């Protein structure tokens, strides 16, 4: 019996290759949604439920819709076939570097890894004792690293402002009142 992780990873690889080879951008955009859903499944299997949640909602949901929206404003087919050798070399080198980097990493789930020795035990013990809530991720995001989360919220707000300034110019409130 093949573990489901390998199956998901294989599907992930197949999806990525198909996305890279497709000329029809509409289908490629839909496939990126499937790619995100598969990675969400992988994250769930690694017990990173909050990450999986975000990946499914943002990657498979909103960003696919935004990509389709972009396609509706531009074209749906790749017009010219660019050279595929240089991108392939770059991707191959990047992937190789990443693989090389993982060699130095501690084994997955290794309790003696440095990252599990430093702050994580405090967080795990403190969440139940200090907060009385079971979700450690919420305790870390909301309280231990509340400053970070404030910054992240500001980043999202700024991103929305930027998109509004760039894309919604001349429309929005004034355009709405004109109608």
């Amino acid at each position, binding site marked *: 019996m093949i573990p489901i992780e390998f199956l998901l990873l294989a599907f992930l690889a197949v999806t990525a290759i198909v996305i890279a080879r497709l000329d029809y951008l*509409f289908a490629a955009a839909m496939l990126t949604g499937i790619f995100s859903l598969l990675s969400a499944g992988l994250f769930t299997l690694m017990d990173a*439920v*909050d990450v999986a*949640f*975000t990946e499914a*909602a*943002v990657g498979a*949901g*909103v960003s696919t*819709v*935004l990509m*389709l*929206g*972009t396609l*509706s*404003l531009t074209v749906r087919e790749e017009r010219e076939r660019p050279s595929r050798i240089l991108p392939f070399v770059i991707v191959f080198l990047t992937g190789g570097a990443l693989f090389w980097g993982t060699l130095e990493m501690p084994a997955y789930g290794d309790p003696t890894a440095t990252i599990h020795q430093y702050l994580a035990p405090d967080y795990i013990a403190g969440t139940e004792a*200090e*907060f*009385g*809530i*079971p*979700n450690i*991720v*919420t*305790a870390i*995001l*909301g*309280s231990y690293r*509340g*400053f970070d*989360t*404030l910054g*992240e*919220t*500001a980043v*999202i*707000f700024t*991103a*929305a*402002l930027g*998109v*509004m300034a*760039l*894309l*919604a110019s001349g*429309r*929005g*409130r004034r355009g*709405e009142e004109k109608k």
Partner: protein
Amino acid sequence: MKIPLMRMREKLVVRVVSRFFIPFILLFGLYVQFHGDFGPGGGFQAGVIFTSGFVLYGLVFGLENLQRVVPWRVVESGASLGLLLYGCVGIASLFLNGNFLDYKVLDPHDAMHGLHLGILLIELGVGLTVSASMLAIFYAFAGRRTA
């Protein structure tokens, strides 16, 4: 609305099914928002899920109808109010003789309750900002005409 998906409003099955699903998506978003302390999720995920209900409505029933439900004005002020709420929680804890974003002082009698209140409020702020920002980005993309 020139997205091919926008022609979905002519499809009977899509209309009926999405009309059936949207309330559940919104309810699930609220659940993730307010149950984030106990289950997976939190303000960010909840905001995105909540917005995806509206985006589905917009895709099926048209952007004009969606903007009648949630006008630009609401989106703009929602995004700012969420961040403001987050910042105000921090400033409130400063005024109550605590550190910035020290939720324990929010309830002078019960520190644990203050903590929960603080986390609930900032998660609400995050959720509000995220859902309004996502909707703003969707509006900005979908509201443009093809060049």
